[in-house]
């Protein structure tokens, strides 16, 4: 895949012409926090604009402000030079601002035509004509060069096609601004190419497209300009091709990574640590095929790969969460069968899910109950830990991990993301595991907590644990991992010492398809 910079488009509309959409001095407050603080933002017709920033930088707030889902506490939004205040997202849609989100917000049980046409257009006496809807849908799909049967049920199509239908719906009325929020997360490379073709066509017909994605290479491929937000503030607006990747990342992160303690990395010359867990030929459909990986004692293996490359599938296969179709997992040399999380835990292999809210934290239970849960589950129903012992255990972990606020009886759901992640780690660490598989442990966490967790991982490895660290952020994977396993399309392509890699070389390995 080419990562060479595309030539800058010569577009008069972007030099001195009036922006199509403009935010000036936009401020949105939630309580005392400012999610957006005096932010400026502009989009011109016929451009693809990227919005970049860490989680919590204010991207989704800005999108909500533009699409009428939120009201501004200060500042103005103008469309075509005229000030607008959208009361609801429908007002924004009527004004020509449409959005397509990562979660397909369509109806899988209705036809493609109905998904494109229902709720749009004139409401006529309550009657609908399937024939007319199909005809109109066919026109719209043709405009995008898509051959999808309008009469077919939406749910019978792949996620990629459903996303295209969502876009078809978005452009079915006169759209001026199209917001695409993480549109490529579930797409493979061919589907991404198709999506980009459509984006380019829309661009040439004068639509302004806001492309929000965490895939840097895609941003560089398709976007003309990029706006960077950090901590709710506007950092800058740049022409994509004039901004080096490393500069972009620095602008997003803002601070230097000097807080991170460098671990003593085993260089290639040093003898390798004994392998604690080894996997061979692991197949777990869908997602991971024929994977081989070794986790040595006291080492951190980073796992890098694009979304959909099988990172989570690998993690779940190694920890008993997902079923293994074939393959052998050995712990200290002997083959084991990890057929449930419970079994894996009993063997010392623990897993932290990337989906902290849905698969991790039990919000209504207290911090204490969350931390002691896994230990209690291992002991079984009839051997309850004495309340005093529970409190002791939880307290020790709260202190060790600096969980704040240090109130054991507080419902865990009231903690911030970073602290919730620490509670989850405490739960796992209380089991005194040998292998820790962490899937996106620092996602959506403020930078301070991020660094704390990264340091913790290093300390755990120094104490002899084997850690598998999965992250979408390549810099993080390189920083934390002693070795990096590179996943592509469900296979571990290579495993390299991280001291041999840079972000760019890692990026190239992660992204290039087999030639």
């Amino acid at each position: 895949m080419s990562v060479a910079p595309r030539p800058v488009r010569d577009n008069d509309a972007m030099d001195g012409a009036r922006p199509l959409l403009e935010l000036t001095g936009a401020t949105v407050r939630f309580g005392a926090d400012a999610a957006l603080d005096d932010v400026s933002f502009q989009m011109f017709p016929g451009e693809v604009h990227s919005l970049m920033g860490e989680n919590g930088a204010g991207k989704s707030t800005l999108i909500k402000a533009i699409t009428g889902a939120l009201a501004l506490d200060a500042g103005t939004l103008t469309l075509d030079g005229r000030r607008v205040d959208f009361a609801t997202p429908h007002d924004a849609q009527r004004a020509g601002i449409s959005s397509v989100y990562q979660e397909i917000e369509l109806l899988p049980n209705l036809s493609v035509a109905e998904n494109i046409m229902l709720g749009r257009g004139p409401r006529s006496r309550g009657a609908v004509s399937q024939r007319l809807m199909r005809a109109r849908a066919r026109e719209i799909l043709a405009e995008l060069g898509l051959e999808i049967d309008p009469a077919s049920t939406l749910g019978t199509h792949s996620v990629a096609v459903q996303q295209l239908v969502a876009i078809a719906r978005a452009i079915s009325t006169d759209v001026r601004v199209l917001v695409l929020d993480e549109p490529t997360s579930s797409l493979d490379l061919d589907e991404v190419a198709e999506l980009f073709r459509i984006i380019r066509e829309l661009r040439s017909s004068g639509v302004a497209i806001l492309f929000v994605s965490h895939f840097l290479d895609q941003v560089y491929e398709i976007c003309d300009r990029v706006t960077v937000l950090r901590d709710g503030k506007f950092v800058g607006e740049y022409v994509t091709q004039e901004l080096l990747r490393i500069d972009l990342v620095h602008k997003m992160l803002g601070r230097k990574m000097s807080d991170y303690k460098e671990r003593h990395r085993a260089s290639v010359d040093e003898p390798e640590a004994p392998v604690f867990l080894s996997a061979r030929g692991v197949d777990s459909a869908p997602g991971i095929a024929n994977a081989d990986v070794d986790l040595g004692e006291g080492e951190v293996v980073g796992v890098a790969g694009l979304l959909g490359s099988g990172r989570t599938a690998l993690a779940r296969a190694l920890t008993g969460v997902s079923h293994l179709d074939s393959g052998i997992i050995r712990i200290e040399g002997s083959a084991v069968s990890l057929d449930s999380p419970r079994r894996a835990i009993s063997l010392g292999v623990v897993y932290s899910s990337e989906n902290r809210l849905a698969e991790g934290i039990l919000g209504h239970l207290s911090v204490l109950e969350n931390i002691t849960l896994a230990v209690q589950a291992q002991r079984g129903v009839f051997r309850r830990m004495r309340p005093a012992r529970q409190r002791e255990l939880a307290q020790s972990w709260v202190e060790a991990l600096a969980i704040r606020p240090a109130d054991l009886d507080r419902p865990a759901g009231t903690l911030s993301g970073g602290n919730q992640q620490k509670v989850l780690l405490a739960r796992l660490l209380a089991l005194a595991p040998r292998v820790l598989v962490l899937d996106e442990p620092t996602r959506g966490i403020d930078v301070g907590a991020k660094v704390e967790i990264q340091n913790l991982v290093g300390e755990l490895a120094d104490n002899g644990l084997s850690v598998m660290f999965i992250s979408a952020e390549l810099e993080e994977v390189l920083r934390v991992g002693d070795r990096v396993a590179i996943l592509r399309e469900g296979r571990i392509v290579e495993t390299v010492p991280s001291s041999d890699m840079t972000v760019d070389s890692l990026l190239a390995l992660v992204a290039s398809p087999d030639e």
Partner: protein
Amino acid sequence: MTRIWKHRLFWPSAALLVLITINSIARPRFLTITMRDGDLYGALIDILRNSAPLMLVALGMTLVIATRGIDLSVGAVMAVSGAVALTVIDGSPDPGNLGTVLVAIGFAVLVALVLGAWNGFLVAALGIQPIIATLVLMLAGRGVALLITGGFITTVNSAPFSYIASGYLLVLPFAVFVSAAAIALIAVVERRTALGVLTEAVGINPEASRLAGVRSRSIVWGAYIVSGTLAGVAGIIYASNIRAADANSAGWLIELYAILAVVLGGTSLAGGKFSIAGTVLGVLIIQTLEATILFLGVPSAQSPVFFAIVVIAVVMVQSPWVRGGLSKLTRSRRPQAVAEPERTKVAA
């Protein structure tokens, strides 16, 4: 933590007290307890005794609801249990024999346990929605009970059997001891072992619990087994009370009263944290309300109207409260209530 407890049991306790107060004003002899031949009698005693079947069913329902499920089949299981017991007794040469009665009861409760296990199998092993899974038995169960009794209302004359519902042990009705034993047993098992907190975990988030190594499947299965078993015992008490097996009337609508008792007691229908004490209070509230309605001369067939009103009032009151509490927990981001900027209508 103390604030939560106070919050959760405060309203049910207050409601019960209010009901008792109203009753004792309207009916001066309401609070009177008399002793005759070493046994206690009185309106309060009646309430305690009559609430036994509902108490057992509601206890089981609490556990099932805590796992995020529901058991609509408890009435039907009661019918089956009564039918089995009475058929055994009726078919035996000496219905008054204590041994026969014990065997009959044991067999009936065993059948009920199996039915509970069946529900548990559908929900925990096959992953079927609890409403649907238990709806099947709710539908078919009474048919089974009718088959067992051959379509008739089997009556028996058996002193040991009648003792269950009408007899006295020490100073209180035997049925009250059954209730108390069930409450004590469940409370002890749930709170002194880890079963309580693990059940709550499963109800709050089954998948997260599974990942944490909790035996979710077993816990859910177990809850339905307990629910079925308790319904079986409740069916015995009911049958003992009318000295017959009436497959159509046994436990009719009891699942709804049980759900109401659980909800009144503060346990959320969404699963998770549950309160045995709350359910006990809920059952007493319902039973007292029923007694009040009957005392007012309302035919018992019409009493569901009052309970409908209670259910509606309770869910309406709970609804904004739940939303308010939840938004505090998840820190949902609502824009500040700041003076809105002037809105110019956007020309379409």
